[in-house]
């Protein structure tokens, strides 16, 4: 991180002076998060928790991390809230413009490449882990993973964020190719619930969206309606 080496030192000096302003208000807002996206035949299911933190304080407990990029393309945001909001807005603009030029709905792969272009070019300055998911006519439902650093890879199922570490085992044992839409929704809900249970930076409600040729169907699962597991 040669280019960004000056910045952390500066911000720490300034923070230590003021006693009146508490620690959590000086830290950057981060979506310490759990996000997930799964492909099924005919579309994708995306899901996320709803917690945004500044240090140990929850700045927003009902965040919507499933951001619309285009009619049939959504992205799941994790990492710095400011960075991911800024990138998502830039890509929305670029994709909207591109779609008008083409006079047809854009490809999910195009959106993923636009995300990757920004995330890779400014990799030293940004902290953004993004899942791009959607439906298009050419390849159907697709999930692309653009983690911190700016890699781009298509995966049938992908998880991200700080809470994802806790559910890799669950994903490896419970995912099989060829799941139906409802099975995908169920898998996503269970996975997010388990991650939210264990990860301090994930929590709140579970937000889900199903994207297919027919459109986008959004739902929210509130705290008391989450599935219950037996170790408590």
């Amino acid at each position: 991180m040669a280019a960004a080496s000056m910045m952390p030192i500066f911000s720490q000096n300034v923070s230590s002076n003021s006693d009146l302003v508490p620690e959590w208000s000086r830290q950057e807002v981060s979506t310490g998060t759990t996000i997930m996206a799964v492909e099924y035949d005919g579309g994708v299911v995306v899901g996320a928790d709803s917690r945004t933190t500044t240090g140990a304080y929850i700045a927003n407990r009902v965040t919507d991390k499933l951001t619309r990029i285009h009619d049939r393309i959504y992205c799941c945001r994790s990492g710095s809230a400011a960075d991911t909001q800024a990138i998502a807005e830039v890509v929305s603009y670029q994709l909207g413009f591109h779609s008008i030029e083409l006079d047809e709905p854009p490809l999910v792969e195009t959106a993923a490449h636009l995300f990757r272009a920004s995330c890779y070019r400014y990799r030293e300055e940004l902290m953004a882990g993004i899942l791009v998911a959607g439906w298009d006519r050419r390849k159907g439902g697709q999930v692309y993973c653009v983690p911190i650093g700016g890699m781009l890879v298509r995966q049938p199922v992908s998880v991200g964020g700080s809470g994802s570490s806790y559910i890799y085992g669950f994903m490896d044992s419970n995912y099989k190719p060829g799941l139906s839409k409802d099975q995908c929704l169920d898998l996503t809900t269970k996975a997010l619930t388990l991650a939210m249970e264990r990860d301090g930076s994930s929590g709140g409600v579970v937000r889900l969206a199903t994207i297919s040729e027919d459109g986008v169907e959004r739902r929210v699962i509130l705290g008391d309606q989450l599935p219950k597991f037996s170790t408590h």
Partner: protein
Amino acid sequence: MATLAVRRAPLGGFSFENCKRNSILESEANKVGFSVPTARKTGTTICGVVFKDGIVLGADTRATEGMVVADKNCSKIHYISPNIYCCGAGTAADTEMTTQIISSNLELHALSTGRQPRVATANRMLKQMLFRYQGYIGAALVLGGVDCNGPHLYSIYPHGSTDKLPYVTMGSGSLAAMAVFEDRYKTGMEEEEAKQLVRDAIAAGIFNDLGSGSNIDLCVITKGNVDYIRPHDEANKKGVRHGELEGVQLTGDYRYKRGTTAVLSKVVNPLDLELLEETVQTMDTS
């Protein structure tokens, strides 16, 4: 990162050379026993709430410089446009200048579009500016207003992230204020109920946070009307000093009667000046 430390031509954009200089100066100054002047921060409580017909914004009025109160009655609710106001916490200069810049740009934008400005527009402009400065502009804002799409409330953080919510709090006293909101907020409140809730939230910040204090300012924005109530509540009224000897109330007036200070001696030296020339140059006030 295994990169060589090669000297390269200065790129366009920002130069943070002065940051290095400042940190060197600070350590040098500390060695000699001086301290660098601190930026004045508004350790603050600001909040906003959406009610049935619009928005209520609230703020305390204390501005601090380290541990000293710099201004007992500063105004933290800034004008953005006739239908949009913005509360600011963080560095006082940053919130003041940022809101003024966006207010000016928004007025030009409104003239260009021929429409009343929207809160979402102000939000975009603020977040894009703050993101560009990567958090170095220490402005944490609560932006609220009523436009053609109804009432909207946003919280904007110094790094440029925003949240659109029905109730928000910011500043050092935000935890105290948020506790009040989480307990008593309901959707579709009436104006008086909303004003009382905001007043109580700011009061919680004032009495439980050292960085917030003095009075409570409110701003009620509805479609076609703005009520800027300053002060709404003088939560911390300064007491009246009593004179120790006479038991008379001293009003804190620093004008003293002639004779308070005894005159010991008096010397008068008249200066004999002769008026040579008198000219009058009028000021151009056109």
